[in-house]
């Protein structure tokens, strides 16, 4: 039994199915991300947990209690918004203390707690400042402190970093994760940025058009994508059309490739395979799972050198770590690509 459970959640707006068949068990203290493109239903699901939307079907259970029917104010949640949503007429300290004030805590207690929160976000000097006097990053930290001050059962974050500059984003996301771990609070994090999801989460829920594509740890999602969508959305994926030859062999554009796992279909069947760019290498000699090709483009990305190689009807991206001793290939070069059996994944 999880701390936060979503059972068969479905949300329909008019005739559009925004979220369908959403099932999730979140353990206490776990950090789960909802990852997907705009409109995939991730924010809608988050808002259903918060209570701002009501599911058309299904149940939401927090800490053993069914929360359906409970207004947001009674759910003991903490919410961080993309636009910070700090109350503009209140100082940072007043913003942070607001939830406690609502709960009727004493002034002394509020003051102490606000002080603790300001220490937690490392901005004690901002206590008396107003939102318009703070940068975006500072405002979001204060918003986080405000959400955590009341010690909620679940922390909900709706694309909290999307409105911030790239550099601040990286800083702040590490701080968010550190604070979450330190407090041991269960967190649901909505984002369209896969780097955020991969670096922060204990588990990721990848969503597409209202449906859950895959739930897993970042390692699983990246290395063993269950569907074509997950393979393409998270990281770069090379997609290949293959025909099954036997239990562990496929044919791609006339070349035979061995696979590590048993194939799920019989000889002659058509399959869709994916392989990550960093698993492919340029080989020197012939051998099993080595196919010839021609280099189309080479892009120097700094730490990575990406070569695009045409093999038959397919174009594969090959990523190699930059090595100053090793000159990258040039467009037009004839090369050999090694496709490791273990790296080939069936996704459809």
């Amino acid at each position, binding site marked *: 039994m999880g701390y936060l459970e979503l059972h068969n959640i479905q949300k329909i707006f008019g005739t559009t199915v925004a979220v369908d068949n959403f099932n999730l068990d979140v353990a206490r203290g776990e950090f789960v991300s909802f990852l997907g493109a705009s409109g995939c239903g991730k924010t809608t699901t988050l808002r259903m947990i*918060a*209570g*701002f939307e009501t599911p058309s079907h299904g149940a939401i259970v927090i800490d053993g209690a069914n929360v359906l029917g409970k*207004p*947001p*104010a*009674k759910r*003991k*949640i*903490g*919410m961080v*918004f993309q*636009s910070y*949503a*700090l*109350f*503009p*007429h209140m100082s940072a300290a007043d913003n942070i203390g*607001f*939830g406690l*004030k*609502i*709960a009727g805590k004493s002034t002394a207690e509020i003051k102490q707690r606000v002080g603790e929160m300001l220490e937690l976000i490392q901005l004690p000097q901002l206590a008396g400042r107003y939102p*318009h006097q703070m940068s975006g990053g500072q405002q979001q930290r204060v*918003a986080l402190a*405000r*959400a955590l001050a*009341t010690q909620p059962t679940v922390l*909900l974050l709706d694309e909290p970093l999307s409105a911030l500059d790239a550099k601040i984003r990286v800083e702040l996301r590490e701080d968010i994760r550190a604070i979450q771990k330190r407090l041991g609070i269960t967190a649901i994090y909505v984002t369209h940025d896969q780097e955020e999801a991969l670096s922060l989460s204990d588990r990721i829920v990848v969503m597409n058009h209202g449906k859950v594509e895959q739930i897993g740890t970042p390692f699983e999602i990246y290395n063993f994508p269950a569907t074509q969508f997950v393979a393409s959305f998270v990281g770069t994926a090379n997609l290949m059309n293959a025909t099954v030859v036997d239990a562990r062999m496929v044919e791609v554009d006339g070349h035979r490739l061995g696979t590590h796992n048993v194939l799920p279909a019989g000889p002659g069947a058509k399959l869709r395979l994916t392989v990550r760019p960093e698993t492919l290498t340029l080989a020197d000699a012939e051998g099993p799972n080595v196919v010839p090709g021609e280099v189309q483009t080479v892009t120097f990305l700094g730490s990575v050198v990406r070569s695009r190689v045409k093999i038959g009807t397919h174009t594969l991206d090959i990523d190699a770590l930059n090595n100053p001793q090793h000159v990258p290939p040039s467009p037009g070069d004839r090369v050999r690509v090694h496709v490791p059996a273990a790296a080939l994944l069936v996704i459809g």
Partner: protein
Amino acid sequence: MAAAGSSSVRLLMPSELNANGIDAPTTASRLWGVVKTWLVVVPFFLFAFMFLVLPALSITVGSFSDNDTGAFTLANIIELRRPSIVSAYSVSVRISVVTALLGGVFGFLMAWAVSLGQLPRWVRSALLTFSGVASNFAGVPLAFAFVATIGRLGAVTVLLKALGVDLYGAGFSLYTFIGLCLTYLYFQLPLMILVITPSLDGMKTQWREACQSLGGSTWQFWRFIALPILTPPLLGAMVLLFGNAFGAYATAYALTSGQINLVTMVIGQQISGDALHNPGLGNALALGMVVIMVISVAIYTLLSRRSARWLNR
């Protein structure tokens, strides 16, 4: 000029331009350029001066001038303490305050209904369009409309009588303070709606949701968040309504033929017939009105600048 092929290139001083065959802007032509730039706006400012500033100035000067000698005097201002004039100011202020408060509160409620109250889009559209029209439907036609409604033989008066409520028998009359207030509301309400709606639109939904997520009830949201944020624009709008009512002439005249004692009525009577037999006093009266309007506009501007910071991000 740098010789062709030479490797040194030097910027020419302005004084060297002519010698090198380049047309330099002379001081005279530069000056003319500046004049031309400013010439375009001269008609506008000349007009504003002649037909807005000058009248206002003239009134100001006239207020402090002795009627016969033209010397500086405060006598006109002091004369404003005439009971009839004090009474006129009092009535004008009262009617303006009452309609500003009533129009402000009910206008706010209606504006709230179509913005935060989330009534359908078409209702909001209709209300805003109608407000745009109704706020211009003042003066003579408005007065007649109310006569037809709650005048002695008005439709509502007759209807209420049929239901057993005798308005005029009970002492009510359209041609009094209360009647005028009711009539003024017809353009005060729409003005409020038009002025306050942008501020209401500026209330972010996330503030409401953040408050809810922190455990706040609707009442607590309004008490700690919404009303504090909305108070400056609300007050500002009501001050605007005050000024609007204070300067109203046509409606009051059409309804009461100048019989109700308002500052605008007295000024009007002064224009049409030198009722005060004292041009200096007339000036002082007009000046008093301008002063009150200036204060209203100043307060409104200050308050709206304050609220813009919170509601327009």
